[in-house]
């Protein structure tokens, strides 16, 4: 018995050190969703030292005139893995990179593309300049060694053209604000693929730290619904070819808006709101409970202020 225990301890310790000493690798896979169009789907999780922050969807469009990359991931290591993955699928050079908004999982891979023009909305560029380093520090805290050598590389150009034509792809740039204050959505008219960025989450609870307000977000989702897409790539969660991701977003945002309004009207404290049950229909969405709690922290004070 004693020997067995010692063996067990030795094995466990050995295993642990093997895991922590092993090379950290994202093992990225690209899924083709339309001609020349690829999506690298992240996990439906929160940032952790196990997933290295790979919780985000990135994508790229291979044209006859170079590759367009949509978001660069949470770390230098991710950005490098993404670029390597692209090079295994095409000989075309990376021509243009977009950061859809200023959240860390969408731009901290920029180092791997610093030789290419990186475009973002003007407000996104300001937000990254202002908060980028704090975000990067927080990512080191959350995911650890995966972040090694990651530094903020600011987007170098404004995404100011309404339409970009590369090869036989016509990519329309659409500006929204609902998720982060400046959200770039890309619609490839030639394939019908809509890269919805974090304006749309699907099967992974949406996050609200910089939303200008739920009503704004809801209104902009109506505009996105008017686009006749064949494939919708959410910022987080599986790719869809119909309106179900938009349905889920709108249902959840309406419930959130209504819950916060009614809670403030009846005088609930933040503690009481956080403890409220989340309806059954949203419980299949990953991280619903914890993201609801975060959203209460972000949004409830403004709702409370309306009922003084």
């Amino acid at each position: 018995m004693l020997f067995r225990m010692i063996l067990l301890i030795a094995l466990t310790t050995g295993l642990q050190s093997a895991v922590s000493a092993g090379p950290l690798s994202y093992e990225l896979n690209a899924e083709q969703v339309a001609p020349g169009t690829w999506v690298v789907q992240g996990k439906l999780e929160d940032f952790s030292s196990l997933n290295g922050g790979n919780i985000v969807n990135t994508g790229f469009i291979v044209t006859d005139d170079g590759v367009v990359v949509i978001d660069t991931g949470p770390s230098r290591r991710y950005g490098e893995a993404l670029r390597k993955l692209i090079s295994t699928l095409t000989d075309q050079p990376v021509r243009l990179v977009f950061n859809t908004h200023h959240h860390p999982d969408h731009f901290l891979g920029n180092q791997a593309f610093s030789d290419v023009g990186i475009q973002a909305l003007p407000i996104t560029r300001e937000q990254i300049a202002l908060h980028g380093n704090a975000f990067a520090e927080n990512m080191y805290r959350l995911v650890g060694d995966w972040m090694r050598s990651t530094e903020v590389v600011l987007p170098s150009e404004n995404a100011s053209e309404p339409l970009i034509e590369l090869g036989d792809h016509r990519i329309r740039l659409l500006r929204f604000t609902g998720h982060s204050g400046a959200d770039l959505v890309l619609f490839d008219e030639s394939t019908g693929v809509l890269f919805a960025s974090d304006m749309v989450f699907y099967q992974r609870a949406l996050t609200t730290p910089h939303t200008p307000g739920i009503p704004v977000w809801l209104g902009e989702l109506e505009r996105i619904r008017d686009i006749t897409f064949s494939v919708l790539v959410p910022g987080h969660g599986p790719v869809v070819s119909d309106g179900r991701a938009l349905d889920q977003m709108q249902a959840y945002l309406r419930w959130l808006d209504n819950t916060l309004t009614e809670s403030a009207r009846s005088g609930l404290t933040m503690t009481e709101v956080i403890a409220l049950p989340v309806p059954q229909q949203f419980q299949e969405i990953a991280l619903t409970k914890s993201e609801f709690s975060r959203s209460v922290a972000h949004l409830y004070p403004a709702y409370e202020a309306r009922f003084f």
Partner: protein
Amino acid sequence: MIRHCLFMTLGLILSMPVTASSDDPLNSPLWNYMREQFIGTDSYQFDDRVRVVVPEFAEDPTQVPITVDARELAGQIERIIVWADLNPIQHIFTYYPHQAIVPHISLRIKVQQGTAVRAAVLTDKGRWHLGGSYLDAAGGGCTTPSAAAADPYWESHLGEFQSRFFPRSEGGRYKFRVIHPMDTGLVNAIPEFYIEQVVIRSASGNDLARMELSPPVSENPVITFDVREPDKKHSIWLRDNGGNEFEQAL
């Protein structure tokens, strides 16, 4: 026998660094010191009936919602002291509720790092009842400049007061918000500036409850408390450490 010895040794090794000479269910390294600071050598017990409700994680370390609930405790409550063990300023507030006040209060606080948040409740039996929860946080709440430090809005609105009464199934609830920077004094070149005293008064001018606040109470405090009799006209009086006094009907 060998097996038992091994378990005992393992158990000892595992338990020694954290629980040595401490009965604290939250295993806080500062428990004994904090206890001496706040309740001295008085007799006390850990008591599940004193609930300190905190979120799983301090999403915004400058505005963390907490609720202290001692409604299940029998006997009249004399005093409730609330503190965070690992904050640079540990004391958050002390509450002296009258009989007409339900011992259930919510507000937002600043935290500097993950810490035990505790409430010590003294009843008229002369014994302290202790509740607490561990609050996880990335930190920095006490050394972040207040929003007021970057925006002169507060200068012309200091002490502005909003409040509302909400009927409850039993009794009623007041929620109020007051404009105040609540500066901790821990940010370079921004002196300590915070509301020290809050007194809730009945229509006849008697004190119903008194609070002593410390700088870890969040900027522009929002405080929610419950009363047993909703139909009374109450007013509130505040004073900050700069000597400014504010009085308002609730």
